[in-house]
């Protein structure tokens, strides 16, 4: 027998491969494709934003743990890095580096650590950071750059727009157009399906490519990090509602395909709404949550003054999560004995 004393513990005596760090690492891997596409399309500014955002998140969490909360360092669980990357993916590509720093401080310092750190926060930290920036620096946060980087010579769908260096997002174009008396179907029709799926003109860094986001989503599903429930209910809700509105009045409302593959719906639906901490824990709760996000997001797009509302809708539904957790119970095994 070893010099160490034998170990005694209650069962089980084995643990599965799951760990918080592995989950967060998987999210980072799933974000790689879209980050890469964004880098190729927007160039070095993406890298600078990523570095400043992630470094600030990590530093912020370290300093708060060390000097304010006097708790052990928790940056090893990689959750601060995930928050940083998600925050940066929600910024416009032309944003200056300090925007990422301010957003990261708000995300970690206010949205995460004041609630008690990982697992305690009510709102998605990256989204709180983004929304804070959006309402504080509205001009900087809506200055969109068209994709122009290393890829422009290779992708014909980009070259048509290369002369215009800045422009609005598709959703923004539609909103502006409708206000000045345009027709929704024509405005939306100016974007080809290739653009919406592969390289989208205009939008946040992480909204660049729907396909890259879906790839990341499939990876997360295969690794069982997320379940299909939330992304699918969000997309289905948006698609169904948009179909109804669109068929009623195609001149005022954009169609389902356009709505699912523009704006932050995929980025939000796959990566932000599925955040464990701020989403419901049971399937029934997740369905209600997904439907709520879809409805609110589409309502903001159709009737609100902002062109895009995924961030707001996720944050609004985050508020409802505790009550969903309380009332949505899993299906129990077996009926009540009489």
């Amino acid at each position, binding site marked *: 027998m070893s010099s160490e004393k034998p170990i005694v513990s209650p069962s089980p005596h084995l*643990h599965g491969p*799951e760990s918080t760090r592995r989950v967060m690492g998987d999210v980072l891997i799933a974000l790689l494709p879209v980050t890469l596409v964004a880098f190729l399309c927007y160039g070095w500014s993406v890298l600078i934003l990523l570095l400043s955002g992630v470094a600030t998140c990590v530093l912020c969490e370290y300093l708060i743990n060390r000097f304010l909360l006097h708790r052990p360092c928790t940056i090893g669980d990689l959750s601060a890095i995930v928050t940083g990357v998600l925050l940066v993916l929600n910024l416009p590509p032309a944003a200056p580096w300090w925007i990422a720093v301010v957003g990261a401080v708000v995300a970690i310092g206010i949205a995460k650590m004041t609630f008690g750190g990982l697992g305690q926060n009510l709102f998605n930290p990256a989204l709180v950071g983004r929304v804070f920036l959006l309402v504080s620096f509205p001009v900087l946060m809506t200055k969109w750059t068209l994709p122009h980087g290393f890829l422009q010579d290779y992708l014909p769908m980009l070259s048509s727009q290369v002369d215009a260096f800045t422009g609005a997002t598709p959703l923004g174009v539609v909103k502006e157009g409708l206000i000045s008396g345009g027709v929704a179907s024509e405005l939306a029709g100016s974007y080809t399906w290739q653009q919406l799926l592969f390289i989208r003109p205009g939008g946040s860094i992480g909204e660049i490519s729907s396909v890259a986001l879906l790839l990341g989503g499939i990876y997360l599903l295969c690794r069982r990090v997320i379940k299909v429930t939330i992304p699918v209910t969000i997309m289905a809700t948006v698609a169904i509602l948009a179909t109804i509105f669109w068929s009623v009045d195609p001149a005022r409302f954009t169609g389902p395909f356009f709505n699912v593959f523009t704006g932050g719906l995929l980025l939000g639906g796959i990566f932000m709404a599925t955040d464990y901490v701020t989403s419901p824990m049971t399937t029934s709760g997740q369905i209600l949550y997904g439907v709520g996000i879809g409805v609110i997001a589409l309502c903001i797009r159709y009737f609100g003054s902002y062109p895009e509302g995924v961030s707001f809708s996720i944050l609004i539904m985050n508020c409802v999560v505790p009550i969903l957790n309380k009332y949505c119970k899993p299906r129990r095994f077996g009926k009540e004995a009489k």
Partner: protein
Amino acid sequence: MKKTFAMGGVHPKDSKLARKSAIEDLPLPATVAISMAQHLGAPATPVVAVGDKVKVGQVIAEPSGFVSARVHSSVSGTVKAIEPRTDLAGNLIPHVVIDVEGDEWLPEIDRTPDFKGDLTLSAEQILARIKDAGIVGLGGAAFPTHIKLSPPPGKTAEVLILNGTECEPYITSDDRIMREHPDEIAMGAKIMMKALGVGRCFIGIEENKPEAIAAMRIATIRFGGLVVVPLKKKYPQGGEKQLIDAIIGRRVPSMGLPIDTGAVVQNVGTSLAVYEAVQKNKPLIDNIVTVTGKCLPAQKNFRVRVGVPYSYLLEAVGGAPAKASKFISGGPMMGKAIRNLEATTQKATSSLLVLTEAETKRRAEGPCIRCGKCADACPMGLQPFLLNKLMRLNRTDEMEQEKIFDCIECGCCLYTCPANIPLLDYIRVGKADVMKIMRSRKK
């Protein structure tokens, strides 16, 4: 598409290291210490005195309550002491200690290897034999078998289910007996079917034991009414409620008993013991124990007499290496860690598992990230994260509302938790609290 249970479950690596090792007889030790508490319920009362000569199979203790079972001597020799000794958890339990002298069996026990397939006894006679032989469920809970085979008034059994799933990683004892004694197990099932008055029997075996499935299929050809059901590999398929759900698709109600679905579940090991008791007159004095672990020099399956020290079992495979740091009686998911290696095996001991620190040491607990994986893994549809929290706040009422008493303590929640929160540790204590309150309310 093979069957399995519908809700929850996890897939630990099966690590059946000893599956190729045929059952060997473990040499007799110099002394055995036979526990009086080898079954669920009150400890048995010794009926021998210090200095008495006993033979193999002789009764040494009588049951002292309804849920209790007889204990027989597993060796021949002299009773050296009747005293409290520490069990594997370190608690004092009355033991009968016997010095081994030779190996002299009671003459009425049939020790020939011949298969006896004719059954003339009535259901009552069968139950009496099983009771006299001190047979308890060998699946782990050690519930006296004769009680389980006598459904309470108002309930009727429709089907017998034999549990050959062996869903715990590492353990191979049931696998080996199904491969080596399929006829006896099938005959045991036939005997229990007669005792219950049922015409159908399903034998559930997980697909990672193809040889056992094949052997049992051949054996069942000769008997009518027995069907082998291969099952997908998923833990905790061997749980009674999960097995009934997997095989006949019925769910035991909350707070109910398996008999409420018309099913009686017995382990294949119990079936073999029933065959030996009824056809061969042999009481339950030995069972198959897998001695296994990646760090051990050899992994073997032994036929072990009741009351052998765990340390003696370890010696039989060449002793534990220096890096061995956890000794477990039973499987890695539900087995009990052994504090005291001088404690002795019991009727329902299925395995001695040795793990190293790297394999078993728990990782540091982190904050709950509310991923809900524990709830997804729970085969009973509970919310372990919530129960754990309620227990830490001592909210017994809410734990009861959240059906903590349905917990089968399978350990899936703790196995799967990314934050390594000791969910089951707390739930187990909370469950004991709630059960106590519910019992006191009933009175």
